[in-house]
């Protein structure tokens, strides 16, 4: 990995952060906090790791990405547009009537969206299903899934965790966006998932823990995941909710609130 490459990813991440803030402001609603926390993870996947072709969104051999935390839709949309799945101008139709950019992702509306999500805790089971199909068909694609830390409170996640290990789905790579905040407050106060890495290990997963804003660590973990066989991989990524915007960082109130124009201007200045 060259320095130039890191620079490229950093630039992409910056653009995507600005797109997220702008599109949510334009929409007047949406989820900035949890979109900003996972920018580096999804950027690394779409611009470095995944075998995809935006010109052929239905290519059977493509790697898949399932956004289990569907409320981070602005992040997914910004990345897909930047990657060329659809025109960037369309980002400003987010959450508006008639738009392909629904409040939460709709796989039948927008190319590149692999699964309709939004009801929390359902993405991992779906990723497992895609992975099972890949194994049945002898295809070597991989399935990436991004989970929110709050949504792993849902029971279905642990049903899916058990099943992925049972069926030895080593073509599943999950990220946990561990930003520590959910709507009602700090996750450790609302309903603690800790010790979270141990839980996934106990369910039979290969677990790594990284700083989720550090591209070197993300790509390093992905490299290890690629080489690892025999079980699914969980990458616990420690992140900051609202990352990159000073007044949003670690603020629970920025989970699902749109910035004002003035706040947007300030955020864009900070993001450079």
């Amino acid at each position, binding site marked *: 990995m060259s320095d130039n490459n890191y620079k490229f990813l950093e630039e992409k991440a910056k653009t995507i952060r600005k797109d997220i803030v702008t599109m949510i402001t334009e929409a007047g609603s949406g989820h900035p906090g949890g979109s900003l926390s996972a920018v580096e993870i999804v950027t690394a996947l779409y611009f470095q790791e995944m075998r995809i072709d935006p010109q052929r969104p239905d290519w059977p051999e493509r790697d898949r990405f399932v956004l289990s935390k569907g409320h981070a839709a602005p992040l997914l949309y910004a990345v897909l547009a930047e990657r060329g799945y659809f025109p960037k101008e369309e980002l400003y139709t987010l959450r508006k009537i008639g738009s392909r950019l629904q409040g939460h992702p709709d796989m039948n509306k927008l190319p590149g969206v692999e699964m309709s999500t939004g009801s929390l805790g359902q993405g991992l089971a*779906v990723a497992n299903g895609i992975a099972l199909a890949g194994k*049945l068909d002898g295809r070597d694609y991989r399935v990436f899934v991004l989970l929110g830390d709050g949504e792993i409170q849902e029971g279905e996640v642990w049903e899916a965790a058990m099943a992925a290990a049972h069926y030895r789905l080593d073509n599943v790579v999950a990220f946990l966006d561990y930003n520590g905040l959910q709507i009602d407050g700090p996750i450790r106060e609302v309903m603690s998932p800790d010790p979270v890495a141990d839980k996934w290990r106990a369910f039979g997963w290969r677990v790594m823990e990284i700083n989720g804003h550090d591209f070197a660590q993300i790509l390093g973990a992905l490299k290890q995941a690629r080489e690892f066989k025999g079980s699914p991989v969980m990458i616990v990524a420690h992140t900051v909710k609202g990352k990159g915007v000073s007044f949003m960082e670690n603020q629970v109130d920025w989970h699902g609130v749109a910035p004002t124009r003035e706040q947007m201007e300030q955020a864009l200045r900070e993001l450079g």
Partner: protein
Amino acid sequence: MAEKIATREAYGKTLVKLGAENKDIVVLDADLAKSTKTALFAREFPERFFDMGIAEQNMMGTAAGLATAGKIPFVSTFAVFATGRAFDQIRNSIAYPRLNVKIAASHAGITVGEDGASHQSVEDIALMRSLPGMTVIVPADAVETEQAVKAAVEYSGPVYIRLGRSAVPVIYDNRDYTFRIGKAHRLREGTDAAIMATGIMVSIALEAAEKLEKMGLQVQVVNISTIKPLDKEAVLEAARTTGAIVTAEEHNIIGGLGSAVAEVLVEAYPVPMERVGIKDSFGESGKPGELLEKYGLTAEHLVEAVVRVEKRKRQFAKR
């Protein structure tokens, strides 16, 4: 006495038959494969069978994922767990994205018997019917089950097939009956009243019609095996030709076939109507026959309902 076969039995055998022809068919179960009869498929095609354990929500989500990759998943467990426990997964991961998942749930209704109310699904039709784009099929016998499962494979989109535990009489002959999704089938002619029945109530309706004939009433019997999309023409045709409708279902009278038929009639052709079903209550333990008796689902109950509705029809005509 006609031969009796449980619809779940026919389902299991049909899966094996279709699984041999279509390699895209995969089957998932939640630790009830012996009861739902998917074990037959598991024995023939172990690589395409996934036991997901006692985890229905994950099972539905996994089926959704398999469907996005071109598989035709059949998901089976008891109706009460499939539709109730995993409702949100069916709604958001299967119905909303219109994925090609077939939910074939067994042990529907009170004829589950001795296990009691916790295992007797009396609301699954209502739940599945309310989901946009969900097709809801309730086969009347083994022959129709086989054809319905085949039709579900040929149809692209989410389908719910409601199967029973107990053996039920075989009504149809495979040689002269063709099931089509969305098409009701008139089994008996008559102009005094019509019984529109679904599932195990179809053979009971035929029995009731025999009794009514002896009492001097000619009663039409219509099998509504697709609850959704409902064959509105068949409903209106029955209303026009008889002027009195009785619905019959092994389900709560709220939200099931009776509601579906009433919705059509009230908007287009209101006629006197009676709904025979479980009267907004949970079931209990007992033998299937005893339960049908206690909850008002026998041929005698249907006869009484027809007599009532036919009388109302004549009263209306006089006014």
